[in-house]
C-alpha cells in the first residue's frame, strides 16, 4: 500500500493531525469545529493560558455532546441526591471528569468562575479526577454547569452509582491519629527515659525522679488505651470465634508489658518498659498503615450501577421527549437511545437500525444487528443511529443484573486464613513453652525471680516482629506491583495469588485488545485511486467493519458516492466517478458462503472485478504467546468466553481442550465453582460485566482494562492492559511474599535470642529492651523493603531488554 505523504498540521487544541479539514484563527490551526469552538470560548474570557501550561491539552472535540444530554439534571429529586450541600445561596456538587489528564486541566477547571460568574469556586482533586463546584443556584443551575463543562471539553460522567450510598468511603483517619499520638508519646517517653539509661549517678532529688516516672506513666496511657486498642479488639474478636490470630499474642505482650511497668513505677521498684512498649506499638501501627493504604483513586467494588448512565430519554405520546432518571423507568416506557449510548434496561426494539456492541456484557466481539421486535439486553451499547425501544424489564431485573443476585455476591470476604496467623500460632506455643520452662526452673532455684523472668520473656519475645515483617513486606510489594500496573485491592490478595494453581481467561477484551482489530489485505494490489474509492464508500457506513477499513486505509480525500445502498450485515455499494464499487461479505456477492476461517472477510469489488479481501481478526494482546507459554508451566490454563469458537484452533496450543465458548455469565461462575470443588485455587482474568460473577467467585479476580479510570467490575486486582506481557513475572513476584517474610522474621528472632538470654535470667534491664526493640524493628523494615525492591528490579531489567527483542513469534503472526 502506498502511503500518501501526511500533512503535518496539528490541531492547536488537541494536538491531533488535521486530517479531514483544517480551520484557522490567526496562525493557529484546528482539526474540527469542536476544537475551534473551545478555543474561542476560552479566548473570550482570557483563559488562553490553558494552552501555554501544557502543549495541546485538549481532547479531540469531533464528537460533540448532544445539547439535550444533561436535561435529566433538571429533575429535582435527582438534584437532591447529587448535590451534597445546599443553603439559600450556594450548592455544592462534585463532578467526575475522566478526561482530566494534565496540569492545564487543573488550571482551567479551577478557573471556572471566570467562565461563569455564578460559579463561586471550584476545586480539583486530580488523583480522583473530580472537581468540586460551589455555585449560586439562584443564578445558574446544575444542568448549566454540566453544559458548561461539556462545552470546554470536559463532559462530566454520571452513573447510576452516584445516586447510591451517599456515604462515600472516607478513608479511615483514625489510624493516622493513632500514629500521630503514639509517635508523640513514644518520642517523649524515650526522651524522659534517658536518665534511666545512662544512670548519671542515681537521681538524688526524689521529686525529679517522680516527675520523670509519672510523666512516662501518663504518656503511656494514650498509647495503651488508644494506640494499641485495635490489637485488643481484634484479639478479643478472634478469641470469641475460638481461633488465634496474630493479634492475640501481641495483645498479650502489650498487656503484660504495660502491667508490669505500671507496677514497677508505682511501687518504685524500677523504671518499667514503657519506652519499648510504645515504640513497638508505634512501629506496628505504621506497618499496618503502610500495608492497608488503599488506592482511593481506584474502585475495586463497582457493581453494575457504575456502568449504567444516569438519565435516558423517554418518549411520550405525541412525540414529547423528556429526559428521565434511569431509576424511574417503568415497564412499558418507550425510550430513545442515541448513538454510543448504553441501553439501561431489557427492551424490545421498535424503531431504528440496531447495531449493538455487547462485548462488555456477553463477550461477543462483533456487534450484533437486531431486528425490530427482537429483545435487546441491558448493558449493550448502540453503535448506529437513534433507536426507539420499549422497556420490558426493570433496570434492576434485567438479564445482566440478575447475575448480581447470585449467592457469590452475598458471600463474605473470608478467603482463607492468612499465612502469618498460622505461624503466629506456632510461635505462641513455643513462647509459652519457654516461659513455663523458665518459670519452673526459677521456682526450683530462686522463686523470687519467677515473675520477673516470665514477664520479661513475654515482653521480649513479642511476635510483633512477625507482624512487622508481614505488614512491611506486603505494603512494599503492593507499592511495587502498583508501579507495574497491577493494582491489588489489599495485602491478602498477594497471598491468594501466591497460592493459586489455575488460571481461567476470558477472551474478548481480555486476551484480545478491545480497540484494535487486526486488519490485513489479501489480493490484487490496489492503486491510490482504488484505495480512495474503497475508503469513500466505507466511510458512508457506520458498521464497525467499515470503520475499521477506513481507519486502515491511508488518508485521502473523500469522493462523492452516488446511489449508496447499504444492506445491513452484508455490505455496501455505490457509484463513484461512474464506477460501481462494492464491499461486503461473501454472502453479499451471492456466492456460496463458506464457513468462517478464524476471521471475517470483507471483499472488494469494482466494476465486477474482485480485487481482494480485507481480513479482520481478533488482535491479541502483545506478548500473549510468551505469557501463556510461561504460565502453562506452573498453572492449569483454561479459556471461557461468551464469543463463538472461531479462535479454537489458534488457541489450542495453550489451552488444549479447556476452551469453552458461547458461555453465559452464569456458566462462567459455575465453571470456576466446579474447579474450586476440585480443590483448585483459581485466578480469573476478565474484563467485562459478563465476567463479574466469575471474578467474584474465584480466589483472585483480575480485571484487565485499557483505561484504569474506566469502569471495571468488582475484582481483587485491576491490571493495566498494556502491562499484560508482564503477567507471569508479576504472579511469580507475589509468590516471593512468604520467602521475604520468613527471612526477615528469622533475622529478627536472632535479636530476640539475645534479649531472651537476659530475660530468662530475670535480669532484663529496660535499656536493653529499649535498644533491641528499635534495632530489630528498623532492621526488619530495611530488610523487607530492600528484598522486595531488589526482586522488583530484576523484573524491570528483564523488560528493559525484552522490548528490543523480536516479537515475530507473537500469536498474531502464527499461521494456523
Amino acid at each position: 500500500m502506498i502511503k500518501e505523504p501526511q500533512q503535518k498540521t496539528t490541531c492547536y487544541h488537541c494536538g491531533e493531525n488535521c486530517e479531514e479539514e483544517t480551520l484557522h484563527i490567526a496562525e493557529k490551526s484546528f482539526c474540527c469545529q469542536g476544537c475551534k469552538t473551545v478555543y474561542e470560548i476560552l479566548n473570550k474570557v482570557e483563559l488562553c493560558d490553558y494552552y501555554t501550561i501544557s502543549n495541546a491539552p485538549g481532547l479531540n472535540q469531533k464528537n460533540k455532546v448532544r445539547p439535550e444530554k444533561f436535561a435529566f439534571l433538571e429533575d429535582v429529586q435527582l438534584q437532591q441526591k447529587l448535590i451534597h450541600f445546599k443553603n439559600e445561596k450556594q450548592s455544592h456538587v462534585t463532578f467526575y471528569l475522566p478526561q482530566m489528564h494534565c496540569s492545564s486541566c487543573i488550571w482551567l477547571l479551577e478557573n471556572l468562575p471566570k467562565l461563569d460568574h455564578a460559579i463561586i469556586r471550584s476545586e480539583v482533586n486530580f488523583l480522583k479526577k473530580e472537581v468540586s463546584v460551589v455555585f449560586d443556584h439562584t443564578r445558574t443551575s446544575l444542568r448549566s454547569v454540566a453544559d458548561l463543562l461539556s462545552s470546554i471539553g470536559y463532559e462530566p460522567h454520571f452513573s447510576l452509582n452516584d445516586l447510591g450510598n451517599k456515604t462515600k468511603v472516607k478513608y479511615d483517619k483514625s489510624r493516622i491519629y493513632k500514629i500521630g499520638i503514639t509517635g508523640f508519646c513514644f518520642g517523649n517517653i524515650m526522651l524522659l527515659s534517658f536518665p534511666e539509661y545512662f544512670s548519671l549517678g542515681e537521681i538524688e532529688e526524689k521529686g525529679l525522679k517522680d516527675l520523670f516516672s509519672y510523666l512516662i506513666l501518663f504518656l503511656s496511657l494514650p498509647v495503651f488505651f488508644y494506640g494499641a486498642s485495635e490489637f485488643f479488639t481484634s484479639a478479643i474478636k478472634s478469641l470469641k470465634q475460638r481461633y488465634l490470630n496474630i493479634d492475640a499474642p501481641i495483645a498479650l505482650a502489650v498487656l503484660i508489658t504495660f502491667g508490669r511497668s505500671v507496677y514497677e513505677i508505682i511501687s518504685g521498684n524500677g523504671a518499667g518498659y514503657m519506652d519499648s512498649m510504645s515504640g513497638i506499638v508505634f512501629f506496628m501501627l505504621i506497618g499496618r498503615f503502610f500495608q492497608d493504604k488503599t488506592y482511593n483513586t481506584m474502585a475495586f467494588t463497582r457493581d453494575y450501577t457504575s456502568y449504567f448512565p444516569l438519565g435516558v430519554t423517554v418518549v411520550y405520546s405525541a412525540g414529547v421527549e423528556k429526559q428521565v432518571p434511569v431509576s424511574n423507568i417503568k415497564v412499558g416506557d418507550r425510550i430513545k437511545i442515541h448513538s454510543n449510548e448504553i441501553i439501561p434496561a431489557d427492551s424490545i426494539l421498535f424503531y431504528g437500525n440496531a447495531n449493538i456492541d455487547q462485548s462488555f456484557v456477553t463477550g461477543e466481539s462483533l456487534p450484533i444487528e437486531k431486528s425490530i421486535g427482537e429483545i435487546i439486553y441491558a448493558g449493550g451499547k448502540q453503535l448506529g443511529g437513534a433507536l426507539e425501544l420499549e422497556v420490558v424489564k426493570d433496570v434492576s431485573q434485567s438479564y445482566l443484573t440478575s447475575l448480581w443476585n447470585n449467592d457469590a455476591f452475598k458471600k463474605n470476604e473470608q478467603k482463607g486464613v492468612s499465612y502469618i496467623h498460622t505461624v503466629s500460632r506456632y510461635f505462641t506455643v513455643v513462647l509459652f513453652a519457654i516461659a513455663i520452662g523458665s518459670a519452673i526452673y526459677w521456682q526450683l532455684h530462686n522463686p523470687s525471680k519467677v515473675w520477673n523472668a516470665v514477664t520479661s520473656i513475654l515482653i521480649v519475645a513479642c511476635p510483633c516482629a512477625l507482624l512487622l515483617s508481614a505488614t512491611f513486606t506486603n505494603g512494599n510489594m503492593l507499592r511495587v506491583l502498583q508501579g507495574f500496573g497491577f493494582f491489588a485491592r489489599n495485602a491478602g490478595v498477594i497471598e491468594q495469588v501466591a497460592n493459586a494453581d489455575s488460571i481461567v481467561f476470558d477472551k474478548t477484551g481480555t486476551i484480545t485488545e478491545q480497540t484494535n482489530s487486526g486488519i490485513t489485505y489479501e489480493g490484487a494490489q490496489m492503486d491510490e485511486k482504488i484505495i480512495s474509492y474503497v475508503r469513500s464508500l466505507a466511510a458512508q457506513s457506520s458498521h464497525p467493519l467499515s470503520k475499521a477499513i477506513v481507519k486502515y486505509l491511508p488518508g485521502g480525500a473523500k469522493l462523492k458516492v452516488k446511489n449508496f445502498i447499504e444492506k445491513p450485515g452484508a455490505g455496501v455499494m455505490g457509484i463513484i466517478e461512474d464506477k460501481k464499487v462494492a464491499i461486503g461479505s461473501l454472502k453479499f456477492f451471492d456466492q456460496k458462503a463458506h464457513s468462517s476461517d478464524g476471521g471475517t472477510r470483507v471483499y472488494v469489488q469494482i466494476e465486477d472485478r474482485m480485487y481482494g479481501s480485507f481480513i479482520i481478526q481478533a488482535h491479541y494482546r502483545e506478548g500473549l504467546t510468551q505469557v501463556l507459554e510461561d504460565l502453562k508451566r506452573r498453572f492449569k490454563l483454561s479459556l471461557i468466553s461468551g464469543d463463538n469458537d472461531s479462535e479454537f484452533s489458534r488457541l489450542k496450543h495453550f489451552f488444549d481442550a479447556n476452551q469453552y465458548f458461547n458461555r453465559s455469565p452464569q456458566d462462567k461462575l459455575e465453571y470456576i465453582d466446579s474447579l474450586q470443588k476440585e480443590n483448585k485455587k483459581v485466578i480469573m482474568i476478565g474484563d467485562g460485566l459478563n465476567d463479574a460473577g466469575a471474578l467474584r467467585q474465584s480466589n483472585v479476580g483480575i480485571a484487565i482494562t485499557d483505561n484504569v479510570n474506566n469502569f471495571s467490575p468488582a475484582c481483587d486486582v485491576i491490571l493495566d492492559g498494556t502491562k499484560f506481557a508482564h503477567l507471569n513475572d508479576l504472579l511469580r513476584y507475589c509468590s516471593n511474599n512468604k520467602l521475604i517474610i520468613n527471612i526477615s522474621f528469622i533475622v529478627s528472632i536472632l535479636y530476640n535470642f539475645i534479649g531472651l538470654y537476659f530475660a530468662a535470667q530475670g535480669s532484663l534491664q529496660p535499656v536493653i529492651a529499649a535498644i533491641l526493640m528499635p534495632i530489630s524493628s528498623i532492621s526488619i523494615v530495611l530488610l523487607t523493603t530492600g528484598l522486595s525492591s531488589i526482586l522488583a528490579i530484576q523484573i524491570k531489567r528483564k523488560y528493559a531488554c525484552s522490548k528490543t527483542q523480536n516479537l515475530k513469534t507473537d500469536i498474531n503472526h502464527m499461521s494456523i
Partner: protein
Amino acid sequence: MSVIFILIIASLTIAIGFLIAFLWSVKTNQYDDDYTPSVRILFDNELSATQSTNAKEKNK
C-alpha cells in the same frame, strides 16, 4: 537541677501544641489530596483572576 521541672513542662507543652496542629490538619482534610496542591502552587495569576472577577462584578 530543679530548673529541669520547668524545662520539661515547657518542652512538653510545645510538643503538645505541634501534636494538636497535626491532628487538626488531618481532621480538616488537608491530607486527603496530596497531589493537586503540588501542581496548584505552580500557577500564577490566581490572585489576579479573582481580582479581575471582582472588578468585572463592580462594573456590571
